[in-house]
């Protein structure tokens, strides 16, 4: 494996062209009888904000830990910036990690925590101090330098962990569900900060999350993990608008799966198709069906008000559920529970999966 790979990289122009910050080939990882990751190939470009998205137990954290070096893959190879690191220890890799529980050293204060990696790299004292000050400035926490981690709030710990990793100027920063422990408001604020910091430092970020909204709003590209495999890799818009599998369609946001007789009747094929709720609307009464529009009759069963829009669940006569969504504040009267409505959607929006 190693031999063939290095052969293909031998010509310098090819290795320049590769430019991948991280390149995983044929990665397998088993823990005893349990296989966490199966035959995984993945390339992450330099400077990208890349998310590994999936439910818990789908293998995304295991992949992150293999990139960091905490786990050895059972099979396959890992390259970082063109260098083979499959069997190298964590301290030999130019990646740093922000841990889910922050993993700040409880016996060291904030400045000492941030300084830890610099000290190991034998950076001179004066320079070290300057870098720590700059890093604390970047996370806007210079006032807590002398405090212990136990005296910080969750959001502050999060930022200190970020500073401790970024101060070493890694090629890649790995973030393991770093916002998972924060409350919703703080999480959204930290998402914006993370994105800003990533733009400023220009380092490749690999971000593990189970929160699809977070992945969509932060990332340049997302890999969707399902049961140890990657179902799809693409930009947030790709994934949302053109999901490749049933799993991707249903994991990212809400969707209608249209299959069987209903699919044949509406779309002329057995499907399944994924149809996003925002693409379904109540048909204006004075419009005849045409080639582009498919329409169906259904009874509104549930009305869920969510602030900016209202989501409706309606049942077709054959018993299938259709979810649709309308922006609030539109002039038309929204349908009530129990009302019979004619729904329509543009056939182009039904994506075969």
């Amino acid at each position: 494996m190693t031999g063939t790979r290095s052969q293909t990289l031998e010509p310098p122009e090819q290795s320049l062209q590769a430019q991948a910050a991280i390149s995983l080939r044929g990665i397998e990882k088993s823990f005893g009888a349990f296989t966490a990751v199966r035959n995984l190939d993945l390339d992450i470009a330099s400077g990208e904000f890349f998310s590994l998205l999936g439910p818990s137990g789908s293998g995304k954290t295991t992949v992150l830990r293999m990139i960091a070096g905490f786990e050895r893959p059972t099979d396959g190879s890992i390259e970082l910036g063109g260098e083979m690191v499959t069997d190298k220890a964590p301290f030999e890799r130019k990646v740093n990690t922000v841990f889910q529980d922050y993993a700040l050293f409880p016996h060291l204060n904030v400045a000492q925590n941030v300084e830890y990696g610099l000290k190991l790299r034998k950076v001179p004292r004066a320079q070290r101090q300057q870098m720590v000050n700059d890093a604390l400035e970047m996370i806007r926490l210079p006032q807590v330098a002398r405090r212990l981690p136990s005296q910080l709030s969750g959001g502050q710990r999060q930022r200190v962990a970020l500073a401790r990793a970024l101060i070493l100027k890694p090629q890649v920063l790995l973030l393991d569900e770093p916002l998972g422990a924060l409350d919703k408001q703080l999480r959204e604020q930290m998402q914006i900060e993370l994105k800003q910091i990533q733009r400023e430092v220009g380092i490749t970020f690999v971000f593990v999350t189970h929160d699809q909204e977070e992945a969509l709003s932060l990332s340049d590209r997302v890999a969707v993990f399902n049961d140890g495999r990657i179902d799809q890799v693409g930009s947030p818009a790709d994934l949302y608008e053109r999901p490749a599998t049933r799993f991707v369609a249903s994991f990212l946001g809400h969707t209608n799966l249209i299959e069987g007789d209903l699919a044949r009747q509406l779309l002329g094929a057995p499907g399944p198709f994924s149809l996003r709720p925002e693409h379904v609307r109540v048909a204006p009464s004075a419009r005849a069906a045409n080639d582009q529009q498919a329409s169906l009759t259904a009874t509104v069963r549930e009305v869920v008000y969510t602030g900016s829009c209202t989501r409706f669940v309606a049942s077709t006569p054959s018993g299938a559920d259709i979810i649709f969504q309308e922006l609030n504040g539109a002039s038309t009267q929204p349908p009530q529970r129990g009302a019979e409505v004619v729904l329509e959607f543009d056939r182009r929006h039904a994506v075969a999966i």
Partner: protein
Amino acid sequence: MAWLGVLYIGSLLLLFATAFWHTDPFTSKVIPGFTLENFQELVVQEAYRNTAVRTIGIALAVTILCAALALPLGLFMAKVAGPKLRAILAIGITLPLWAGYLVKVFSWRITFSQGGPLDWVLAPLGVDGMGYGQPAVVVTLAYLWFPYMAVPVYTAFRQIPDNLFNASADLGAKSWGTIRTVALPLLKPALIAGSIFTFSLSLGDYIAAQFVGGKTQMIGTVIAQNINLNPPLAAAFGLVPILVVVAYLFLARKSGALDAL
């Protein structure tokens, strides 16, 4: 409870007072008074001085030996061993606490005896066992007090999240660096707590010295010899380990290791 306190504090005070009394050389009667003769004796007499230094040295050696064994064992139990092996080891460490003190000391006496088990085991290597003496006292005491060091160290290891080790490796530390900068500082309270036990229990022990020490004398040996002949001298010598332990506790407190208590 109150009575217990009065009795305990009372006898300590009495010990303290007795140390300043003296014994009539002809009648061997204890005469209350105030004299520093006993303490002077301890300092001036070379044998007493050596005994005190030797005892402190043995207690330190026992403490270091216990810590040196407890650290790798604690690491193995907390981070490497599976639950089953961990349970077996935990039982193995604590089980000797249920056996009688004399039984354990006596079995070490047999182990170290001339032509005893240790000599058999070492015979093929062409070496003799160490026999009775100071090293045998250190080994026996370390065996006796090991659980008091191993249990807190193991518990402290278990409380260190694995991620801290990952984090230090991630930030560039090799194994030894991680041990030095992360594990040891976080284990310090447990090591000090354990050492208070191993150190003070060793300071006060004299039976092990009698059984496996050969000619080795400890402070306790001298006290036991003088308890009838010259109680004030015994009392004065008895204050030495107490003062040493108080000084040790003071240092431990100053290091901040007892803050969590």
